[in-house]
């Protein structure tokens, strides 16, 4: 699978290789660069895991300090009955928080950009909510909200909400003035200007916000669970992580960690892919340039 967004960082390295290879024969167009884009990261991963495995074997590192990749894989399979449900809980909180953040962030952004009064009244509080560390608010929320799950959801939402709000507001406000004049000249209603001009204009900004919010929602879901310190059947990966640490079950800790980072990568890949699909026809960020 290729991640469109990573083109920006990987692009430089990948596009450099065909030029250096070009001396030993013709380039096979995009085919080679596509294979490279897939092969280089996979190769890198294999290399890292091999080095890790060799290091553990060579220095005889005890598994409660650093387990071998094989032990981690075994823990992943053996403890799936514990980790699986925990993953599901974390996923549920993350995506639900992200969803509410998207709907709420966009709705508030529209309100703020359409009404100066609303902006003056509400924006400072959105900023305060954002700049206050979530770990500091979490204990309060846990007291006020009866269910831990709901509290975690609120924490994740607060964190994911702001990038969507601020980016979308920025996008809605940076509409080309001539286009606004044009809409006025043709007697566009406020709603038409919003739907046909401001919203499409804000789309790239919104999508950038979405990509940040996706990652933050997961981080906040984990941090909030650390703060909550909840236990039992309904707990997520963060609790399993702490629990494994207490029990010195380091292979399981690694397994939980891997699940978390896989989730993060998946969220990044999906949001980048959505962004690419929506922008590829027109936005500069999604265009490939011929050099």
């Amino acid at each position, binding site marked *: 699978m290729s991640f469109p967004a990573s083109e920006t960082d990987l692009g430089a390295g990948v596009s450099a290789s065909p030029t250096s290879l070009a001396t030993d024969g013709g380039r096979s167009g995009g085919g080679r660069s596509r294979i490279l884009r897939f092969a280089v990261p996979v190769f890198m991963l294999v290399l890292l895991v091999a080095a890790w495995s060799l290091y553990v074997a060579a220095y005889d590192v005890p598994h409660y300090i650093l387990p071998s990749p094989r032990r981690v894989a075994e823990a992943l399979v053996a403890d799936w009955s514990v980790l699986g449900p925990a993953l599901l809980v974390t996923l549920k909180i993350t995506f639900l928080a992200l969803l509410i953040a998207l709907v709420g962030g966009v709705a508030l952004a529209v309100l703020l950009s359409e009404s100066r009064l609303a902006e003056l009244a509400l924006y400072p509080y959105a900023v305060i909510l954002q700049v206050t560390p979530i770990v500091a608010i979490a204990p309060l929320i846990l007291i006020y909200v009866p269910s831990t799950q709901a509290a975690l959801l609120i924490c994740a939402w607060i964190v994911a909400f702001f990038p969507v709000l601020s980016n979308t507001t920025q996008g809605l406000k940076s509409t080309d003035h001539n286009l606004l004049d044009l809409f006025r000249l*043709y*007697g566009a209603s406020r709603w038409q200007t919003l739907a046909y001009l401001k919203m499409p204009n804000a*789309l790239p900004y919104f999508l950038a916000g979405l990509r940040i919010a996706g990652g933050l929602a997961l981080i906040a879901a984990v941090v909030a669970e650390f703060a909550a310190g909840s236990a039992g059947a309904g707990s997520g990966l963060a609790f399993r992580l702490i629990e494994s640490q207490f029990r010195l079950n380091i292979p399981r800790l690694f397994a939980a960690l891997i699940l978390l980072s896989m989730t993060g990568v998946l969220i990044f890949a999906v949001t980048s892919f959505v962004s690419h699909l929506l922008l590829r026809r027109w936005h500069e960020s999604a265009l490939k340039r011929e050099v």
Partner: protein
Amino acid sequence: MLQSSREPMTQAAPLISLRHVSKRFANGTLALNDLSLDIAQGEFVSLLGPSGCGKSTALRIIAGLANASGGKLEWPSASGATPVAEHGAEISFVFQEPTLMPWATVFGNVHLPLKLKGVSRTAARDDVMAALDMVGLAGFADSYPRELSGGMKMRVSIARALVTKPRLLLMDEPFAALDEITRFKLNNDLLHLWSTFGWTVIFVTHSVFESVYLSNRIVVMAARPGRVVEDMTVDAPYPREEEFRTSSLYNDYCRKASEALHRAMEASEGS
């Protein structure tokens, strides 16, 4: 010959009439001072002047995009005293930049004025394609603006202005950012369309040569405050083709307009 056929119209009530219009910006700048101007049906008028002479401001006031601080704007040929806003349907505006929506195709961009009036894509298809055909871009309906050259983008912008079949076309230095070859080509195309459809055009420019080539009347303006210093007729027959650019008649008018512009600039500095 077209000139002669237009003569009787100029005798009738003007299409628009600016009466002692002035405009002062919030920062105190007097952009326009006591501007009075009658524009007849079917005229091709150029507003020529140095930057800061308020020619764009005048255009924006006519379009209803800006309010005059003093004086009034009348539409004598319309029945009764209709407010400016109601003429929106008959006015089209072409900006200096193509001002296209990058997320919409060429078709989508030209469709926009009709879409805002509630005409669906299917219902508008014929009109949109006809407008694209006029500017020679019928084959690019599904392209995105970024795939087009600067000249082609400007053509799309013109097609969008034409799709509503306006009575009055306002153009604010539309070709200023284009290279000379493209500009000459678009000048010719614009004249051709104008002689076919007979709209009234108000064309803002700072190019003497462009104003003489295109228009049958040149209003020369001076800056600080923006005002009219000269109102000259370009009495050369249409259709004007490339030969006109090298004719002595063209030369004479260019000299006249150029001198008027110099006087305008001296007047600007003097004040």
